[in-house]
């Protein structure tokens, strides 16, 4: 399948906000070798397993994590936080009480992280925290657990989420002294497409 059309997105955001321009340019299905596809997956995995992404891709206990170089040790989010089955804290304390919805989300080192959409956990099916590369790969390639997306739609999701100031863009530009996810959004989209064009191969 070829979707040759390049989709250009450019955004005019308020001053201080990250301007995100990304392109979904899928290679022809089958045009990427399994080996190159697996190498692309490794780079995708480095992004999705990074604390900026994985800390909120947690399981059914609905408790976000604090992990990464900013924290002395890995553990549950402080303050007894529980995002509830709503995954937005509606049953307890809304995430957005502190993680405010902001037009300038790359904020200072001592501010709570903020995005241009309301802060929330990823759906429970999309658990990444503590999962192996093979487990995450299986989840991401399974439409029943990835929001019903094929490989091109996965890339489009990344582009579109970033375009409205969601967490994908934030992960690469989290502001303050937070370590960003490795690489940049465009390379991540390109890697997802390379992996997809190779047939979404997963490590053993």
């Amino acid at each position, binding site marked *: 399948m070829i979707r040759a059309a390049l989709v250009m997105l450019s955004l005019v955001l*308020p001053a*201080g906000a990250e301007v995100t321009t990304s392109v979904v340019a899928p290679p022809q299905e089958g045009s990427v070798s399994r080996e190159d596809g697996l190498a692309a997956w490794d780079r995708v995995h480095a992004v999705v397993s990074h604390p900026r992404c994985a800390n909120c891709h947690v399981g059914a206990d609905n408790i976000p994590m604090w992990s990464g170089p900013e924290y002395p040790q890995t553990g549950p989010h402080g*303050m*007894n*936080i*529980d995002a509830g089955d709503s995954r937005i804290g*509606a*049953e*307890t*304390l*809304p995430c*957005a*009480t*502190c993680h*405010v*919805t*902001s*037009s*300038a989300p790359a904020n200072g080192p*001592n*501010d*709570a992280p*903020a995005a241009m959409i309301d802060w929330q956990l990823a759906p429970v099916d999309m658990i990444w925290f503590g999962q192996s590369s093979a487990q995450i790969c299986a989840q991401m390639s399974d439409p029943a657990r990835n929001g019903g997306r094929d490989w091109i739609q996965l890339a489009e999701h990344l582009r579109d989420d970033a375009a409205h100031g969601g967490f994908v863009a934030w992960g690469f530009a989290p502001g303050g002294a937070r370590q960003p996810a490795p690489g940049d959004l465009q390379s991540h989209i390109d890697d997802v497409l390379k992996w997809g064009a190779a047939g979404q191969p997963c490590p053993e």
Partner: protein
Amino acid sequence: MELTVNGQRHQIDAEAGMPLLWVLRDILGLTGTKYGCGIAQCGACTVHIDGMAVRSCQIALADVGGEVTTIEGLGTPDAPHPVQQAWIDHQVAQCGYCQSGQIMSAAAMLALQGEPDDQQIDRIMSANLCRCATYPRIRAAIHDAARRLATG
């Protein structure tokens, strides 16, 4: 920029990035809302925006998308909000510094939760710190306020 606080509209001449807490305290003189940490760690600055608890130290003036209620607008000395009345009856405050934030968080929770149990209270209120450790009285007052709200 226009801002509605406690039912009153204000024209605010300030930078778009000024934290709401600064606007409330330094421009509008509403000093019931306290500055504890400035980094979303203590809850002393909690206000409501369209009824939801928000840390006013975290949100920039330009991002305030609804009506703000502060402790001064929740109730008055003559007609206190049921949470404020429970706080008085249980004499919750020690130094008092954290208490307007505690009350605003509790009031936002009780608008949604009915009668929370201890575990729910701890889930919801753990992000409001009290250096005087009035936590047992906070819990008792929340249970009491929940009963009052339930019975009208």
